[in-house]
């Protein structure tokens, strides 16, 4: 976290360091079904973030004592590659931060996956951050939603996630690493677009009630774009399959 004293000018003439408007997303690209072994997978590039998400399941729950006879359970691993940041070599394996993100990510999906369809089984979600540039947890959730859908797992909705930050009095959408380091507040949020239910919400910094409301509105507005990229990624997989089928 950078201190405010040495904070660079993050907003000049209404534009951000990378030239974006305050409510502008970084370029987002998603490809579904990229891994052969996984039941479902997605590769996402969001600004300089590069994320690989994969789903295995539903499978028999291991260890057995964790099985729930009334519904499926979800397990989630979010981890950052030791070479993912521009800083020093990272520690391998999940740390406390990654463990918390894994937990809240899992809980977000427990609200949308139709768990009662697979009692006693387990669904594994793996999120690997290959390159990080701010907002990796929301990138992970957005990718994992596509991976779950490509695994054919039934869900109430295809959820997306995005982060809103605050610099001085300005709210900014989808902050990158530099903005994240120096911002006054950071609020990642995951939303089910069908009814705009909030499935995951974190915040740190300082936010007024009014700013919270405006932030959520910004997230929902940006969600139209994110949702479209997610759906297009899935559509593309089936289009390719249909083309292959027709050419045979």
């Amino acid at each position, binding site marked *: 976290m950078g201190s405010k004293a040495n904070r660079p000018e993050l907003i000049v003439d209404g534009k951000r360091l990378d030239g974006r408007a305050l409510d502008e997303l970084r370029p987002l690209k998603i490809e579904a079904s990229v891994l*052969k072994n996984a039941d479902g997978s997605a590769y996402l590039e969001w600004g300089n973030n590069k994320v690989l998400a994969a789903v295995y399941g539903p499978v028999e729950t291991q260890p057995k004592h964790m099985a729930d006879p009334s519904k499926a359970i979800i397990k989630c691993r979010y981890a950052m590659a*030791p070479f993912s940041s521009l800083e020093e*070599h990272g520690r*391998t394996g999940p740390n406390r931060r990654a463990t918390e993100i894994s937990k809240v990510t899992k809980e977000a999906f427990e609200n949308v996956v139709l768990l009662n369809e697979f009692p006693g089984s387990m669904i594994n979600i*793996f999120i690997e951050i*290959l*390159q990080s540039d701010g907002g990796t947890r929301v990138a992970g959730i957005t990718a994992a939603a596509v991976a779950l859908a490509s695994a054919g797992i039934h869900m109430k909705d295809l959820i997306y996630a995005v982060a809103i930050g605050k610099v001085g009095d300005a709210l900014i959408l989808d902050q990158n690493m530099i903005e994240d380091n120096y911002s006054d507040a950071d609020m990642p949020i995951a939303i089910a677009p069908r009814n705009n239910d909030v499935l995951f919400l974190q915040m740190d910094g300082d936010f007024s009630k009014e700013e919270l409301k405006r932030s959520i509105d910004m997230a929902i507005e940006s969600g139209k774009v994110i949702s479209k990229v997610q759906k297009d990624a899935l559509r593309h997989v089936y289009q390719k399959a249909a083309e292959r089928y027709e050419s045979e």
Partner: protein
Amino acid sequence: MRCGTSTRRPQKGTRVNNMDAIDIVKSNYIKELLSKGIREDMRKVSDFRKIKITPNVIQNAEGSAQVDLGATRVLAGVKIDLGEPMEDTPKEGTVAMSAELLPLASADYEAGPPSPEAIELARVVDRGIRAGACIDTADLFLEEGKVWNVYVDIYVLNYYGNLFDASELAAMAALMNTKVPAYADGKAVRTDRSKPLKLNNIVTSATFAKVDGHMLLDPDGNEEAACSTRLTVATDGKKLRALQKGLGGSFNVKEVEEMVDMAMSKHEELKKHLESAR
């Protein structure tokens, strides 16, 4: 002792004879094909699968490369940090290599601390590159007590056999595309990365699986499930640089000599792949 799957399956739960039914089916299938002289993807015993090397996939890293060897996919990332030399080599930088069999790469991999298979993989890749003196560690010396520490991380993204050769290629390709940060005022300047990492040699490896007396170069997933034993030969084309025999079975001396000849004859082909991805 279960057969074949050394890099594949951490021990888990109870199994009949430590081998599950699906592996027996795969194994029988591979053996039946071999008795007719064919491999499941119609390769010759001395053929690699299709190799694709994509360099510089992770721009935040000092070097990186993704290797697709058939359906096996491995990503290697290199980070270079400022650090201290080893006590016995005060004028040289250090190199550390590790490998992760990510749980998203196979239903048989589990999250958790590195399995013995992951550690073996990292150490075999490391031995080839270290014994081949590929990285010029003297060039990583900065000043008294300060050197560059090079970290190579091998990330297995999809398993379908022969992680050894895919990882050796990925690590080597990543190193060949690595840029060392500038060093100013006692600090690493990662925004200025223009100096290529100095390399003095290129090492490649060739791994063979033995199935019913056939030596198969670059075994795929099913062939590894069927094999009784395995040999990895790392070479720079002139000398052998590392050997690793794995799994329970055995080779006779003549078989070892044949595989060493084959590995050395394959080096140029692999080196060409590496150089075209530079």
